[in-house]
């Protein structure tokens, strides 16, 4: 398993979608840090470097980050299909569940790496506003960007860390879903497209208020969840992730190549 996992992690960095994704999350925060019309549109001024990562996350969690996650997870398997290396590897004494499990682990790790780079890039982009204490909030706490008085640098960083970590956790089931759909369609584009279509469909299901708390798309807001709800939110995310991963493994094991 460790050989497979090392192989998959090495492959991850060679994927085009990973390189493009990382480039995007490095460039994207600059839009917020240097946007001239931010007050006109949102009615506030950025006063701290800690507010740039928050704005970045708030504006990308509903579409951009799920999209980047889905494309990369789908490409992890899709590139093997496109290169023809999938059968070649499966002819070695490797079990199919182990091989796919290594891919699923790599796909799980990707959102954490993506968001770590995003957070770092956003902090660097916001450096012009300074890293000291400030009057206001990070945008990821209960008091929003306006805050409730002075906020220390440590408290701001803790809020950002918590928010980004929860956001990465919430993206994991999307990665599993993309792998699952790629197993079904046997190509990366089909896998990523089906994942995004599923997410859009789920977003439409908010018209059924009783369903809303259970939807995967609702969990994408986990970064803003109150601490009291966290165990429920994480359990639901884990359930979605485990379900999609299990379906992917079962389907993959019976697939003809």
């Amino acid at each position, binding site marked *: 398993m460790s*050989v*497979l996992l090392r*192989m998959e992690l090495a*492959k991850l960095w*060679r994927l085009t979608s990973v390189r493009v994704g990382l480039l995007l999350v490095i460039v994207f925060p600059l839009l917020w840090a240097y946007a001239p019309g931010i007050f006109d549109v949102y009615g506030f001024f950025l006063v701290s470097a800690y507010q740039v990562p928050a704005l970045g996350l708030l504006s990308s969690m509903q579409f951009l980050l799920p999209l980047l996650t889905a494309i990369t997870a789908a490409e992890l398997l899709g590139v093997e299909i496109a*290169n*023809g*290396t999938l*059968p*070649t*590897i*499966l*002819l*070695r*004494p*490797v*079990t*199919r569940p182990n091989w796919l499990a290594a891919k699923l682990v790599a796909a799980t790790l990707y959102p954490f790496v993506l968001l770590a780079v995003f957070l770092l890039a956003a902090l660097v982009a916001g450096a012009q506003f300074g890293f000291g204490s400030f009057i206001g909030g990070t945008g990821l706490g209960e008091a929003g960007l306006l805050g409730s008085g002075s906020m220390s640098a440590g408290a701001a960083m803790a809020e950002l860390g918590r928010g980004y970590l929860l956001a990465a956790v919430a993206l994991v089931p999307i990665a599993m879903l993309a792998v699952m759909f790629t197993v079904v369609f046997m190509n990366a584009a089909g896998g990523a497209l089906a994942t995004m279509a599923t997410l859009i469909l789920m977003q439409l299901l908010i018209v059924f208020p009783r369903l809303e708390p259970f939807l995967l798309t609702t969990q994408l807001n986990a970064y803003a969840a109150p601490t009291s709800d966290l165990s429920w939110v994480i359990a639901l995310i884990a359930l979605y992730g485990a379900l999609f991963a299990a379906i992917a493994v079962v389907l993959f094991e*019976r697939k*003809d*190549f």
Partner: protein
Amino acid sequence: MSTPAIASERLTKVYGKRQVVKDFTFRVNPGEVYALVGPNGAGKTTVIRLVSGLAFPTSGTVSIMGKDPHLRPEVRRELGAVVEAPAAFYPYLTGRANLQLHASLAGGVEPGRIAEVLNLMELSDASERKVGVYSLGMRQRLGVAAAILTRPRVLILDEPASGMDPLSLHLVHSVLRKAAEEGTAVLLSTHHLDEVVAYCTRVAILEEGVLIDEVNLFDRRERYRLRPTNIDEAVRLLSASPHVKHASVRGTEVVFIPASAKDLAAVTGVLAQGGVGVLEMNRDVFDLRAYYRERVSAERARRTGVIEPVAYPGEAS
């Protein structure tokens, strides 16, 4: 009977409503080279994928070294295979790095083995180049190198000669022949019928997923033909001789199989003693192309009721 290296029993594969392979039964013994030939779409690749465990049979059984590759994936330690044409590798890795990766997945190979197979397949000079810049023939040779890397007891290759120049083709066939001489069972699909005749042990002819004929080329290679002055007497004398395993009439000639290579010299003596002269004697070169055409054409005529010419694979029809 010893355990065959590769075997299938009534192997059937259905995709949707189409039966791609029907009741395919065969066995390949250690040291044999078994070729699958047939028109495009005959089911050769599907058989290869079913046997190697990549696809699941709809019905029937398959085994490698007596074990079902679907239920016992560890049996793939005994297997070296190329199922893609051209052989598939990670294009961003060098030839050597790709082989190292294969070695890791197989649980390791002895030191120097990677350099040895690269040298054997004449890829040493290109081993540090990325596979993405390899020619089709080089990829195919790297595929064979990967297949023989772990010294497997079973080799399965789908069109290993695809896209190769004559020298590379000869190299690959000589490597496969050597592997068979060392006891490896080789199963391959090919369109190169001339090469098949040169070194394969048996050939299966497939048409529409059905095994329509299995030709033992080993026996065919040992056949001789002669034109005697008296054909009936020649057949009678040879059939009764201990130097001859089999004799039969074909047109104006007698086709015979000597008991051994040494017995060949005695054959003309047997005939001379019986008063039969020999006008001409030659090895009976088996024309697999003609035989293939005839068998496939006959099968199509039987199935459709229409007699149509069949092109030899690779020729324009």
